[in-house]
C-alpha cells in the first residue's frame, strides 16, 4: 500500500533529565533464570516502572509471572489481591483473587510457542515508597503468536503500608528463557 502523502518526522531534542531514570536491568543469559529480582530500591522516586520482554521455558503456550514485593524481604504472606481483564482473540474474560501469597501479572509466551516469540509487560508501581497507603500496581501486557495470544490489563494490591524496596518476578515455569529482559525505572514526581 503506498501512502498518498507522507510526512517525515525529524528533529533533535535536548535530553530529558532527572524525571525518568533507569535504575537497574536484568538480562537472562544462557541456561535461563528462575526469577528477576531488584533489591535495595531507593525511595527517592515517586513511582516505579518495570518494562519486560520475557518467555517461559514451561511447555505451554501461555505462562504467567508471579509478583512479589517487600521491604527488606519479599512478602510471601496472603497479602496480595488482583483483578485481570484479558482477551484471547476470541472472547474477553476476567479473573481475580484475594488474600493471595503473590501478585499476578499478564501473560507471556511459553516454550510451546515459536522460539522467537516473547511476551511483553509494562508494570507501574504507583507511590511505591508512601508509608501511609497500601500499594497499587497496574500492568498491561501479553503476546501474539500469529494465530494465538493474549492481551490483558491487570491491577494488583499489596496490602502493606511499607515502602517497596524489593521486587521479585518469578516465572511460573522453571525459568525465564535466555534473552528475557527486565528493566527497572524510577519516575520523579
Amino acid at each position, binding site marked *: 500500500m503506498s501512502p498518498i502523502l*507522507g510526512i517525515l518526522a525529524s528533529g533533535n531534542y535536548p535530553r530529558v533529565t*532527572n*524525571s525518568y*531514570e533507569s535504575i537497574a536491568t536484568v538480562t537472562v543469559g544462557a541456561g535461563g533464570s528462575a526469577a528477576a529480582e531488584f533489591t535495595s530500591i531507593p525511595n527517592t522516586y515517586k513511582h516505579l516502572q518495570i518494562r519486560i*520482554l520475557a518467555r517461559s521455558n514451561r511447555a505451554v503456550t501461555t505462562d504467567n509471572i508471579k509478583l512479589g514485593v517487600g521491604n527488606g524481604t519479599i512478602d510471601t504472606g496472603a497479602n496480595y489481591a488482583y483483578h485481570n481483564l*484479558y*482477551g484471547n482473540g476470541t472472547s474477553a474474560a476476567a479473573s481475580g483473587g484475594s488474600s493471595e501469597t503473590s501478585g499476578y501479572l499478564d501473560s507471556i509466551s511459553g516454550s510451546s510457542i515459536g522460539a*522467537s516469540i516473547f*511476551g511483553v509487560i509494562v508494570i507501574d508501581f504507583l507511590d511505591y515508597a508512601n508509608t501511609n497507603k497500601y500499594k497499587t500496581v497496574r500492568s498491561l501486557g501479553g503476546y501474539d503468536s*500469529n494465530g494465538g495470544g493474549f492481551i490483558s490489563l491487570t491491577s494488583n494490591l499489596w496490602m502493606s503500608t511499607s515502602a517497596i524496596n524489593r521486587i521479585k518476578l518469578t516465572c511460573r515455569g522453571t525459568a525465564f528463557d535466555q534473552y528475557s529482559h527486565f528493566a527497572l525505572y524510577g519516575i520523579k514526581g
Partner: protein
Amino acid sequence: MPAGSTYTPIATTTLGSAATITFSSIPSTYTDLVIVLNGNGSRVAGTDDTGLRLNSDSGSNYSETLLQGNGTSASSSRASGVNVMFQNTNFRIGGTTGARSTIIYQFMNYANTTTYKTVIARSNVSDFNVTATVGLWRSTAAINTIYLYNFTSANFTSGTTATLYGIASA
C-alpha cells in the same frame, strides 16, 4: 544501583494533514520506543482505521490480538498473517466530529536481532471504544523505520501530533 536519565524525545510532528506519519533513521541505542499519537482522521463522522508497518515490510508478517470495550460489552478479536499491524476495525482514531483520540504504542526491545518484535498499544476514542492490543512482527531485524497509516479516509487531520520517544535501560 546505577541510575541514568532516560525517556528521550527523538522526533515529533504536528501535521498539516497527511495520510502517513513516518519515523525513519531511528537510532538503535535505546531499549524501547514509545509513540504517542493524538489526533483524528478526516472522516466527518465515525472513526478511522489506523495501522502501522515496520522497516517498509509490506509482507504478510504481522498479526495481533485485541481486547476492547465499547460501553456496552467487552470483546476480543485477532488478525493473523496480515500485511499491516493493528489494522483492526476496533483499533481506531476519531473522525472530525469527535474529540481527539490518543494511541500509545510501545515497541519493546526494538533493536535486538534475536527475537521477533512485539508491540503493545492502547487506543481511546471517547465516542467509540477503548482498546488494548498486542502485535507481532515476525522479523528479527532491528526496527529502524515506523510508518503510521490512516486507512479509512486517507488523512490524519491538521493538528494531529505524533511523538517518538526512546527509553534506554541501564
